[in-house]
């Protein structure tokens, strides 16, 4: 089941996307309800799915007891699905019931295959987020 493009428009991640790009992304992203306590990402496992938060609170635990909480609509999780190191570096657990949008790495690369420029735009955004998260995981913040 795909989603409507208008759901993406208010999200920071998609702020500079045009209507066609939003529609392409909407066609590839799938909504998923996450139960309270559910672990959606497990540290050390191959990163196969990328998530965007629509609602809920998610606790991300990195190594050495470092952690962050993500709850802002539009924040992403599972960025290593598309950039190095290609395995999850944190465990993500939902604190309350919420909703996310998800895309598998295969679907992500198919999205790129269908629109190279859009792919590059997404990759660059994810790279910026990845740098930030790597810093947090390494304990520099």
């Amino acid at each position, binding site marked *: 089941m795909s989603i409507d493009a208008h759901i993406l428009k208010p999200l920071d991640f998609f702020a500079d996307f045009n209507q066609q790009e939003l529609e392409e992304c909407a066609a590839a992203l799938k909504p998923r309800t996450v139960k309270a306590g559910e672990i959606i990402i497990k540290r050390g496992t191959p990163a196969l799915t990328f998530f965007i938060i629509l609602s809920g609170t998610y606790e991300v635990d990195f190594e050495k007891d470092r952690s962050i909480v993500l709850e802002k609509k539009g924040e992403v999780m599972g960025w290593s699905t598309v950039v190095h190191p290609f395995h999850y570096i944190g465990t993500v657990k939902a604190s309350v019931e919420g909703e996310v949008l998800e895309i598998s790495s295969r679907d992500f690369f198919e999205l*790129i*295959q269908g629109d190279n420029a859009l792919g590059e735009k997404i990759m660059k955004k994810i790279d910026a987020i990845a*740098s930030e998260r790597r810093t947090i995981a390494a304990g520099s913040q």
Partner: protein
Amino acid sequence: MELFLQFISNTGFFLAEYRNFVMIGIGSLFVYLAIAKEYEPLLLLPIGFGVLIGNIPFFKGFGLGIYEQNSVLHYLYFGVTTGVYPSIVFLGLGAMTDFSSLLARPKLMLLGAAAQTGIWATLLSAMALGFTSKEAASIAIIGGADGPTSIFLTAKLAPHLIGPIAIAAYSYMALIPIIQPPIMRLLTSREERLIRMPEPRPVSKKEVMIFPVVGLFLCCFLAPASIPLLGPFFFGNIMKESGVVDRLANTARTAVIDTATIFLGLTVGASTQGDVFLNAKSVGIFLLGAVAFSIATASGVIFAKIMNLFMKEKINPLLGAAGVSAVPGSAREVHLVGLKEDPTNFLLMHAMACNSSGVIGSAVCAGILWSFMM
């Protein structure tokens, strides 16, 4: 008692031989990798389950096996032996591929052509090893790293080898993350892997719409035998790019290609009956397939390095490895190897250009081989 013994003698347990179990083991491994490891599930699950179906022993003459006239599997397999499924897959591929990065830097097309060297080198090797010219051509096309093209050409030239060739082609496509990166690293220096590609120029809507028509004429006039693959491919692409038949384009890249992939994978898997599949020829095909695929990867990288000798603006030679037509697998590997050296160097878009030209290149090669060998 006699009836009971007759029943027992007709069961798969009684009819089984070691080759069935070997193949069932291979099929189970494919299914496991697809489900537990999510490793190329779209390919490995249908093929793996097909291997299981094809290797359940049965009483010959009941019209059950894939090679028996009038069996259900035989009818489904018709799409493979006639080349129908590969054509349909190409229609879907065309409807999902964006050629804008290729049009932005047409010189990257040369890397897609260079990677086809693997096909010609393997053709000669296979002939030297005693395969007939038609068999050799069918084996060589594995170097194009394109499952549907391999099946299409083999169906035309050496239909008795479809099983092993298809399995080899799809196996090597699934093994891209294992085969390609070491070759890329071996043939390039760190400095070369760090080369940044300039931003591609913007490509107009008009250009992407004209491309499928021009591409069709250029490729199919050169190799008319590639029409069954490239005709649907470029048709799929013009449906996507024209924007006037979005519904059709969407169906082609989802329901249509998925349906063809299901039956293609299942029947190719089922065609690997132990008694047909497990022989010395299959081993030779697997070895030559690996050679073909490795040469294809290496020749793309080496050709990029040669281009760099003459070009002012250097190309990252990793891109050459994406000249094989496993879309988007090999483009993704190029991107990942590049990112390991420099996490801010994004090669994916450029690799996609080589990758999509590789699809066209291997289909043209298949057309040329078919014309030569008929």
